[in-house]
């Protein structure tokens, strides 16, 4: 391939990759239209990353009081419980998230994968397999 074509091709690939990246580093606007919820979710992420799970949970619970039917928030809470090795609650909260997930297929997939992991951690291997299988259907 001629030099300049290779050069332009790599520019195109690089820019499309970069734009894909930037759109996923921000909190997806589809999670909520409510600024308060988004602010709390951001704060929760920050706490999580710092390992301060107690405060991460508190922020999420505040967000859930505002939007109790928001599947992403429930999922995030389930995830935090999982990080704290509270597997039974992680599973229950993920199931709760699932009930609100509507047609958010990507989220459902994440949810069922988390359920699978949580079940596995509780030695419920059959249940885990079922969950992973379900995740693959999305």
């Amino acid at each position, binding site marked *: 391939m001629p030099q300049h074509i290779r050069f332009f091709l790599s520019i195109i690939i690089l820019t499309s990759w970069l734009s894909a990246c930037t759109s996923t580093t921000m909190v997806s606007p589809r999670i909520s239209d409510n600024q308060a919820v988004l602010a709390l979710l951001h704060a929760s992420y920050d706490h999580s990353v710092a390992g301060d799970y107690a405060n991460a949970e508190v922020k999420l619970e505040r967000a*859930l009081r505002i939007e109790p039917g928001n599947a992403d928030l429930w999922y995030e809470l389930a995830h935090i419980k999982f990080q704290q090795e509270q597997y039974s609650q992680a599973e*229950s909260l993920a199931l709760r998230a699932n009930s609100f997930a509507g047609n958010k297929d990507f989220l459902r997939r994440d949810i069922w994968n988390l359920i699978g992991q949580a079940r596995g951690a509780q030695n419920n291997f059959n249940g885990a397999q079922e969950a992973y299988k379900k995740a693959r259907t999305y």
Partner: protein
Amino acid sequence: MTFKRIVFFFLLLLLALVLYGVYLDYIVRQQFEGKRFELPARVYARPLELFVGMALTPQQLRTELELLKYTSTPDPSTSGQYSQQNDVFLIYVRAFDFWDGAQEEQQLRIEIRGSAIASLVDAETNQGVDIARLDPVGIGGIYPSKGEDRELVRLEQVPESLINALLAIEDHRFYSHHGVDPRAILRALTTLIGRGRIQGGSTITQQLVKNFFLTPERTLRRKLTEMLMALLLEWRYSKNDILETYLNEVYLGQDRNRAIHGFGLASQFYFNRSIEQLELHQAALLVGMLKGPVSYNPRQHAQRALTRRNLVLAELSRRGYIDKHQYDALIQRSLDISPKPNMGLSPYPAFMDLVVRQLRSDYDEDDLRTEGLRIFTTLDPIAQRAAERTLTKRLGELEQQHRLSANTLEGALVMIHSQSGEVNVVVGGRRPRFEGFNRALDAARQIGSLFKPAIYLTALQQPERYTLVTLLDDSELLWQEPGIEDWQPSNYNNQYHGEVPLWLALAKSYNVSAARLGLDLGIQNIIETANKLGLERNLSPYASTLLGTAELTPMEVAQMYHTIASGGFRTPFRAIRAVMTIEGKPLKRYGLAVKQTLAPEPVYLLSAALQGVVREGTGKGLQHYLSPALNVAGKTGTTDGLRDSWFAGFTGDRVAVVWVGSDHNQSTGFTGAAGAMTVWGEVLSQLNPRPLTLPQPEGIEIISVDPLSGLRVDANCQEVLTLPFVGGSAPKESVRCTSVSGGNKIKNWFKRIFSGE
């Protein structure tokens, strides 16, 4: 007298003194330790969270601000003040230490439009604010039995200006003497000689010791004992400990039957501020009041208090703690007393009862009463007050309407947040300020038709046998079981309705079809369903249980309906969010926890049917209070002889249960719909309820059916019922549109609910 005898006598005296000293030392220690650790826990309601889009009326915001003792002023200049111009509020929010972090003072500008917050801005920076919290309303404390009140402060929290003022006026050699100040005594003695009575001369240590005695005596003997004890106190404890205890112990006033002890509480009581927020002229007043809190009470004797305060300021100036410039400025200040003292004992005893019960299962009661904990609860004071007011009012109206003598009826109400299980309201009776029988938590009454959803839910868990259109048999039923009397349940008007679709039988609350259904399914299975819904009480396995002879408290009923409202996820109720120590260390956090006990599809069908109760059935009257667009789900409950009137239901954000009846189990003369439901409706109508949109589980499909036959029909037919079904369970057969000739036209209420999705 020989020399030996004198010595002997002297030694004996010495021994007596030593023994007396040991005795006093014991008293001192016991009292001091006791005073130090008699600390109540302070309890708070939920903080009001503010964000753009939040449903809130100006009246509700004002109610919260009033409960918080914020002063209304045209130009808020200090925290604890607000102004309102039409629908724009300017609030100077107080700083507050929450369990999840300290929050600084903030000035907020809030604009409300159409019953919701339209704009939320930081008034200083003019930047939009995503979310803000007001400080939480204090709803009381858990106190030692004496009815005393404390707001414990640590020495570090006390402003230096207050300490300086205190020492300057009361005991300026505090840090250098050993409990007794000889120079002060000398001065007092000269006063004694001059005026013939003991006056002053007491150090702070001595004043503290004075508090150890129950009776005030101003004799020389008492004075000497106090001096001795003061010396012992200083020997045993540090200056700072003594000072701190003194600051928390001194008597600074009276609020009806509640004594105000300590500067922390006095600061709240007189100025609505925490001690750290006291300004110098306010501290000076409190110090001035030490000599006579009743005679210098700023609310009763303002002029006298002002003079006294200025005297203190003069002394401070004389001793060089403040300069002339400050002095001149400060004596110009008014007293700055807050107009209304806050309440001590809780105005919400029924809710506090729940808080205490929840704490008791996790803590030693002594810990609770002695640690000075800060407890953050889930109480919603706005909703609580609306519920209290409405219940009391409606009970009076119902008595008049049904010609009952006054105070015959009682009631209870609980309200829980739908998804989180947080208890927002507990009303234990028609006189909510009084600590009495807590009907919400303890009155176990027959629930009547409120039990039916457990039967229908059990049925709907078998979609191959039962769907919402399955025809049930509402003809006469005679149930015979060996060992019990023949049972012949009847419907409300003693009518029988032949074959009825399941959803209609529930909507109209027909007894006979429900009883037959329950018997077909097996009572044990029904009881198991009730258990999964969260009912822990043992139910008797007899047929009569099906029609609600079980006795439950409103709280237990709420648990069952809450599980339905959360789609089959049982959520234990919480009245507490977090507990913090006095130092600010988080002690225990009651987080959100759920457990899926029921498959979501049958619960969804049941919820839809409960919406039918309100649209078409016994709950129809709710529309007088709440718009049909809210799609409220609920169930009426009436017991035999109209002894109990119940309503349990849920909106998008709240689950609430109301009971009305008589404590003596007399007939009320009205049904659940005529009584409890009206209370329910009126309360919810004041609280901006969210519409109920049930999330549809994956296994559910929506089908159009013919109302009469329950068979599939084209969606464009005139008479169509659009209902949810578990996938594959809907009737396979179709039928042609029935003609529109008379008969009952059943509205497409389900269609309206689901087409919005």
